[in-house]
């Protein structure tokens, strides 16, 4: 598997993954230049995942995880957000735009919102 260049989505499978599944159930597909990686929980999003993706040429990385208070592992989503903030600070330090990494909270019922975000991007 190689990576599409425009956008990499590191997704908590319980929230974002389900929202994508719901979106796909309505016959819609991801744009071809978006790569989607389902992870078991936002907490398993590693700063290295994000950096490796940027190294591999991704223009943008989204980390999607549950809303605060909805993570099955209690704080996986908060770790995910912290790691995104950490990478953003690092990118700033090395002169790259911190906006290349984005954290967003999502829930399984937000297929329509996911679609809108993808269209916006």
């Amino acid at each position: 598997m190689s990576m599409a260049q425009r956008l990499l989505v590191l997704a908590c499978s319980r929230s974002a993954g389900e929202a994508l599944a719901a979106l796909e159930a309505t016959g819609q597909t991801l744009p071809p230049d978006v790569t989607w990686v389902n992870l078991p929980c936002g907490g398993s999003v590693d700063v290295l995942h994000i950096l490796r993706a940027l190294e591999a040429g991704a223009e943008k990385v989204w980390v999607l995880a549950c809303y605060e208070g909805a993570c099955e592992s209690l704080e996986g989503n908060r770790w995910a957000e912290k790691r995104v903030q950490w990478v953003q600070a690092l990118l700033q330090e090395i002169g790259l735009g911190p906006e290349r990494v984005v954290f967003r909270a999502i829930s399984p019922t937000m297929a329509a919102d996911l679609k809108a975000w993808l269209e916006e991007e």
Partner: protein
Amino acid sequence: MIVAERKPMVEILASIQGVSRLLVVGCETCVAVCLAGGAKEVAVLSAALRLALRERTSAVEILERSVERQCEEEFNAPLAEDIAKVEAVLSMACGVGVQTLAEQFPDAIIYPALNTQFMGRPEAPGIWAERCLGCGDCVLGRFGGICPITRCSKSLLNGPCGGSSNGRCEVDPEHLECAWQLIYDRLARLGQLERLYAIEPPKDWRSAHDGGPRRTTREDLRL
């Protein structure tokens, strides 16, 4: 453990300016435990450097390694081959590790990637705090196991000063407890408050760094 933190990226980038083949070496003892210089941090720093240097015209090659204890030559020995291949080495060990590499590989250019800070312990997840200054003449037994030299902002041996308020230190009330409050509480708990009547004489700092670089010799371990 020895606690350290990564240097600002700007400083690291400045130090390796013009280097096109680089070795990043981590240490898997103290600095790995304080999440500053283990294999993971080596990978993270290397990835960040590759990203930062991507715009540069010449290609940059970064090797990633980490060793058990960078302050021991035996653990570093296998690095010789890699070191020979690169123009510079970025050490993610404490200052001891960095110097060991420099001594061991006299022809290599070694840069530190960390600022070595203090001897301390994790106070809470993500927070490390200083506990020992390495003065070479431990006084903990007299102060209920709390070091006034390290933990009192003024290193007072006959404290507290007037800046102790509600158990906090005036130097940084938000983060610092008054060491002398801690000492009092602990001695009270141990029923040893009378210890505080003793006036501590001025400390002899010759056993500390003030007496110049220190070394320890164990004759029984030498032939």
